[in-house]
């Protein structure tokens, strides 16, 4: 019987992880890998209630650490990337924009992920505050449930501009449209992302294999290509 | 002048009368009638169950949109399919007493009654709420909801409701069927007065010959959707060849002039061409014309002027014709009382024993109590 791995992953990983899974399957053709994307916070809640996920890739490292502390992990929390946030627009070239420019109402609505439970949203809020425009943009903020939905607000033109994950902005579909400006990572806490093997995955050899595959150069290359800074490596483009 | 989508008034000197030339077809039934009815007075609709009486009333009310033809009521054209004219029911100013009472279940009796009343101009109200409820004996029910009424109570409320719209024509589908004798006795005279006072035509469906004879000026007999007979009450009821269920009820209607009141015995004499009859004391001035019915089964024949019996009314007659009746035991004898037709229903044996034949002079005995009071 083939081994199955079920992965719950933060929405910012959508495109990168799909490629990694494809690469993994070309090597371990016997394993079935299912990935479910969503907001990190929701997955944490569900895992507490026994959700059948073997691996949990969070958009920050706090959620998996809490699960680990609650005894829901099989093994320690492993950091796997540092995320970056960008300014991105569908309707204009955002590459020349800076956070301060968001104070200009002409840019229209500004989409961010929900700061309460989406790590990318939290970092976006921090950056906006640090740039001193948080109060100025209040009336124009719209929040996505997760970072992918946030991107979709911008992509459909309903928000003039948004703060989204670099990994999404580098997706070919979005990359064709508009342009992005990387936000200085000094303006926010690091987007340190971690994953765990859940308690349920203890003994699932395939889950362990996939976790190890994240260290593989093939996977790391893909992650890099989507703009993630890998543990132990510095700087971004 | 009426609104453009209201009833269309024909030429100013439009003739009075109701012209009904309508047809409508259901799966297994087809109504096809051509009637000219008087523009006032009561027209009774007779006919067996399923003969189309209700359907005819519904067509007149405009409730069968599939009906085609022409309908004119006292000069107002309500429907003319050829001209594409169809006046909707609510503009027809009619009163309809449905076969089933059909009260609004969400309204109290009072609000049911007021429903129509409030929709006509105050000036047009010829019947007051108090009058109608008193007449129909429903004062004590005004605050009730319809589902708390008995069958007859519902029917009476339905009648009062229709009357309160002071309609220009009244359509009544067996309104008295569920009522007891006493109540009928109270309502019938009112309907009579109503039709005198309101001067509106009434189309009245009934199974009870008594009611019809008492109320109607005209009768229409329906059978399988067609008019079997129609005409003035007296003429139609005296026709002996009607293929009807009514030969047992055969009889004639006579109009007599109030000629004398006997206050001691509480009697009134009515004179008519060919004789006179005594009836219960009538509240009617001398000279007024009153109508009464002579049931064939209440008439007996004698070959001499019998004396010493309680039968008050004796009329000399000449026998016109003797025809078969509804049973083999009986015959109907049609006679002429000095111009007034009379019919007697007697056994065939009596007919032979008395050697009755056309042209023979006899005495007709009429029990006074059989006359309309």
């Amino acid at each position, binding site marked *: 019987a083939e081994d199955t791995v079920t992965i719950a992953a933060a929405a910012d990983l959508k495109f990168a992880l799909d490629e990694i899974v494809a690469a993994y399957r070309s090597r371990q053709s016997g394993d079935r890998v299912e990935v479910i994307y969503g*907001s990190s*916070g*929701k997955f*944490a*809640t569900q895992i507490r209630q026994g959700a059948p996920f073997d691996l949990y890739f969070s958009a920050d490292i706090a959620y998996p650490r809490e699960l680990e502390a609650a005894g829901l992990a099989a093994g320690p929390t492993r950091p796997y990337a540092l995320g970056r946030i960008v300014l991105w627009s569908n*309707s204009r070239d955002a590459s020349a924009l800076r956070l301060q420019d968001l104070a200009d109402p002409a840019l229209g*609505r500004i*989409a961010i992920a*929900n700061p*309460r*439970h989406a790590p990318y949203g939290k970092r976006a809020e921090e950056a906006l505050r640090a740039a001193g425009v948080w109060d100025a943009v209040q009336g124009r*903020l*719209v*929040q*996505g*449930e997760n970072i992918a*939905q946030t991107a979709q*607000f911008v992509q*459909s*033109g*309903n*928000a003039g501009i948004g703060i989204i994950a670099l990994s999404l902005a580098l997706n070919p579909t979005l990359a064709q449209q508009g342009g992005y400006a990387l936000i200085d990572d000094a303006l926010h806490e690091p987007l340190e992302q971690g994953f765990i093997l859940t308690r349920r995955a203890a003994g699932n050899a395939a889950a362990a294999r996939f976790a190890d595959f994240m260290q593989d150069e093939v996977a790391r290359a893909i992650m890099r290509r989507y703009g993630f800074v890998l543990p132990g490596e510095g700087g971004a483009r | 002048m009426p609104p453009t989508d209201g009833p269309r008034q024909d030429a100013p000197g439009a003739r009075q009368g109701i012209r009904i030339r309508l047809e409508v077809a259901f799966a297994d039934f087809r109504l096809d009638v051509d009637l000219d009815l008087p523009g006032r007075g009561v027209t009774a609709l007779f006919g067996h169950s399923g003969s189309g009486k209700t359907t005819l009333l519904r067509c007149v*009310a*405009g*409730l069968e949109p599939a009906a085609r033809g022409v309908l004119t009521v006292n000069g107002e054209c309500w429907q003319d399919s050829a001209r594409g004219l169809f006046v*909707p*029911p*609510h*503009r027809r*100013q*009619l*009163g*309809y007493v*449905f076969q*089933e*009472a*059909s*009260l*609004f*279940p*969400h*309204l109290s009796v009072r609000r049911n009654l007021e*429903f*129509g009343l409030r*929709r*006509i101009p105050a000036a047009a109200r010829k019947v007051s709420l108090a009058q109608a409820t008193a007449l129909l004996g429903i004062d004590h029910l005004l605050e009730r*909801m*319809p*589902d708390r*009424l008995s069958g007859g109570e*519902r029917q009476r409320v339905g009648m009062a*409701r*229709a009357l309160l*719209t002071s309609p220009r024509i009244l359509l009544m589908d067996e309104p008295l069927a569920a009522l007891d004798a006493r109540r009928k006795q109270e309502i019938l005279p009112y309907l009579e007065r109503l039709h005198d006072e309101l001067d509106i035509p009434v189309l009245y469906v009934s199974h009870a010959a008594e009611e019809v004879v008492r109320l109607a000026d005209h009768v229409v007999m329906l059978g399988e959707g067609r008019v079997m007979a129609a005409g003035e009450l007296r003429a139609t009821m005296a026709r002996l060849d009607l293929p009807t269920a009514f030969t047992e009820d055969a009889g004639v209607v006579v109009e007599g002039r109030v000629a004398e009141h006997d206050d001691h015995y509480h009697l009134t004499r009515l004179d008519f061409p060919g004789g006179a009859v005594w009836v219960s004391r009538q509240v009617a001035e001398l000279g007024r014309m009153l109508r009464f019915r002579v049931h064939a089964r209440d008439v007996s024949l004698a070959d001499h002027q019998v004396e010493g019996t309680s039968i008050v009314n004796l009329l000399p007659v000449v026998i016109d014709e003797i025809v078969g009746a509804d049973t083999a035991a009986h015959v109907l004898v049609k006679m002429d009382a000095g111009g007034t037709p009379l019919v007697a229903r007697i056994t065939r044996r009596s007919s032979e024993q008395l050697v009755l034949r056309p042209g023979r002079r006899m005495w007709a005995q009429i029990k006074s109590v059989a006359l309309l009071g």
Partner: protein
Amino acid sequence: MSSLSSADWSAVWLTLKLATVSTVILLLVGTPIAWWLARTRSKWKGVVGAVVALPLVLPPTVIGFYLLLAMGPNGPVGQLTEALGIGLLPFSFAGLVVGSVIYSLPFVVQPVHNAFEAIGRRPLEVAATLRAGPWDSFFNVALPLARPGFVTATILGFAHTVGEFGVVLMIGGNIPDKTRVVSVAIYDHVEALEYAEAHWLAGGMLAFSFLVLLALYGRRYRTGGGLG
């Protein structure tokens, strides 16, 4: 209920406002449709009925997504509203109302349609012979007789709007005082692991709704059946 933050209170207030406005519009829009469906003999009856019922089967997120596209700057509705000077509907209260009305329409039309059909034609015929024109009959006979259907329609329409989540998620944007309704607020609490706040908000909604429903149930039109 000291445990509700002012943000929560404003979500509650917004939700009630949204549900009330939507329900009023739903009844105004749904009643004529239900009436037409109940009375017509048109061949289009089935098609119209099915179209009105369609929002039922579309997941709210899907409805929300397509509304987002349609009402966005590149969508036909969006271009219309912009041309009319109304601006764009997504992320606005008006947008939520539009979404709610589309989403809940079948829940209003169906019960009212059933109620109208159950009346039959007799009461309207009676009303016509009592001089009531079509509008008069409709308001004074059909509407009162269809009352149980309207109670149900109001309950379902209001509640469905209160409970709406998917559409709001897609076209709302979670803007305080404008589009952050209770369902989203509770969701946020839960996701942020603020369970106590979630419990207060959910519990409060539950208690309030229970009382409203109890009152409505007490006033249901009790007698059934046809004409008396």
